């Protein structure tokens, strides 16, 4: 509850900051402080300290998993604002409003990680999406940005319509919007089965799982790079929190047919994401496809829904978000976003090149980075379910494919010569990037540091 209320308040505060403070460089610091406060209060709530004691049990229920997930999202956003704050200033004319919208997105994330009612699922997803439509189009003069915004908006509201139809059908069958009631029904009627499938399709749209991924590369490519960074990490990961909360109690009763449905979606997502990423020329577009591929891995949690899967999803959220935010922060400073643009980075900026290499290794799931344990937990969760073990094998195979395109960047940085054009970077940027890399390596050696927060 702290997050939801405070982030809405901070959003409004940020808008007023835009009126009263004319120095654009200051917005970033205000936002960073507000995010820090938000993070502290959210962690406090995990320990039972609530600012506003509102009884909303029918709509929202706050438990450790959801709160920890929100903490990871807020922390990633904090890192994102600190790393890319300068680029947000360049993306559009209204910097303060862009930060305000980011806070409103966090408000939506607070809701989708802890809802117990389909009404709140709908409201949360919308609070999360609508500011993003605006952020995507924040560069008003840029035609590609406009196009991405329109495409994202049309696809987003279309999927909302589908989700609402699903919710309405579930309501017709169950007579209530409460998730646990929807989840506990034994045999499925036609209405319920259709409703669940429609909600599944709509949420697949939001997390860009194949075959509903086609908007993702265009939108991620067209949006300003800083905004893509936020969309592809924090928001996408939050979509999975919504997903797993809905399906938590459900899967056991839904039987083998839904299992098969999810398995097909996972395989399609992994295949489309990885195989298309191999053929990309632009690193930004490659990252868009790789985010689809990573979504395929995160869907494993949805298939398995056990404790290992939940732990894995937390770890995956942290590992994936931090690494991708780091990569995008460097990418936003480059003019040439093709693979050739990275040629010779190791010579001119050895530290940044080394850190980027760590991020890419983490995304590929190489041991000693957080990405390795994230993938490990996902596969372990699948194996623990004792059926569809073939899925784990497919996952490993596609993880091997992903190594190819991630290493192409590392190869360009270290083994090719070229004149790199990089916007000037400050020392604080480098140290921050170093800190993110340290966190990733630390989680890769000792993942329990994060997971033990679930149990105390």
């Amino acid at each position: 509850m702290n997050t939801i209320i405070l982030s809405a308040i901070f959003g409004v505060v940020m808008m007023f900051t835009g009126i009263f403070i004319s120095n654009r460089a200051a917005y970033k610091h205000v936002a960073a402080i507000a995010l820090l406060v938000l993070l502290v209060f959210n962690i406090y709530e995990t320990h039972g300290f609530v600012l506003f004691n509102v009884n909303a049990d029918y709509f929202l229920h706050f438990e450790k998993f959801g709160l920890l997930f929100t903490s990871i999202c807020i922390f990633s956003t904090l890192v994102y604002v600190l790393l890319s704050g300068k680029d947000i200033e360049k993306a559009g004319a209204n910097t303060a409003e862009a930060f305000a919208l980011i806070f409103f997105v966090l408000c939506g994330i607070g809701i989708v990680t802890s809802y117990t009612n389909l009404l709140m699922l709908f409201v949360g997803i919308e609070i999360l999406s609508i500011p993003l439509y605006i952020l995507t189009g924040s560069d008003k003069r840029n035609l590609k940005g406009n196009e991405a915004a329109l495409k994202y908006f049309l696809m987003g509201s279309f999927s909302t319509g589908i989700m609402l139809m699903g919710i309405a059908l579930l309501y017709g069958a169950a007579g209530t919007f409460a998730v646990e009631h929807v989840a506990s029904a034994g045999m499925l009627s036609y209405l319920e089965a259709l409703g669940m499938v429609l909600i599944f399709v709509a949420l697949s749209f939001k997390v860009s799982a194949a075959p509903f991924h086609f908007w993702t590369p265009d939108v991620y490519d067209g949006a300003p790079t800083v905004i893509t960074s936020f969309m592809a990490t924090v928001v996408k990961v939050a979509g999975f929190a919504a997903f797993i909360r809905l399906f938590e109690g459900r899967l056991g009763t839904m039987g083998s047919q839904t299992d098969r449905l999810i398995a097909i979606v996972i395989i399609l997502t992994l295949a489309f994401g990885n195989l298309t990423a191999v053929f990309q020329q632009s690193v930004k577009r490659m990252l868009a496809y790789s985010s689809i591929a990573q979504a395929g891995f995160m869907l494993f949690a949805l298939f398995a829904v056990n404790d290992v899967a939940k732990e894995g999803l937390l770890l995956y959220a942290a590992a994936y978000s931090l690494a991708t935010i780091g990569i995008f922060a460097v990418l936003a400073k480059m003019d040439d976003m093709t693979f050739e643009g990275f040629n010779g980075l190791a010579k001119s900026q050895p530290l940044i090149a080394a850190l980027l290499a760590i991020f890419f290794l983490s995304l590929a799931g190489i041991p000693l980075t957080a990405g390795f344990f994230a993938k490990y937990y996902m596969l372990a969760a699948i194996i623990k379910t004792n059926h569809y073990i073939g899925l784990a094998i497919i996952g490993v195979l596609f993880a091997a494919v992903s190594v190819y395109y991630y290493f192409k960047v590392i190869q360009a940085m270290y083994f090719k010569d070229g004149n790199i054009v990089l916007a000037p970077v400050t020392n604080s940027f480098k140290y921050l990037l170093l800190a993110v890399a340290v966190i990733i390596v630390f989680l890769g050696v000792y993942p329990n540091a994060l997971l033990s927060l679930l149990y105390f």
Partner: protein
Amino acid sequence: MPITYYITLAIVLFCIGVVGVLTRRNAIIIFMCIELMLNAVNLLLVAFSKMHNGKALATNPTSLAGIDGQLFVFFIMVVAAAEVCVGLSIIVMMYRNTHSVDVNFLNRLKN
């Protein structure tokens, strides 16, 4: 009237919306079709709400069961209004730059 009529009507409206979104090329018409989908859902929710209420009234004459379906409709209306704001402004922004609202125009991002 039996509930099936309402369900059928809502599904038909919804399908018209979906087909419109998938086949039309004018951004505004696509947008209208999305609104049609949302309104089909509203209709269905109200019908289900009445149905659940009717069932509960049979056993308990002061029952409020089914009221949350109607509440949901208000939320959908509010959110749809917010979406219209954002959506129309995006379309206007697009029109200012390209002088067209045709989504076929939108293939600069391919490749």
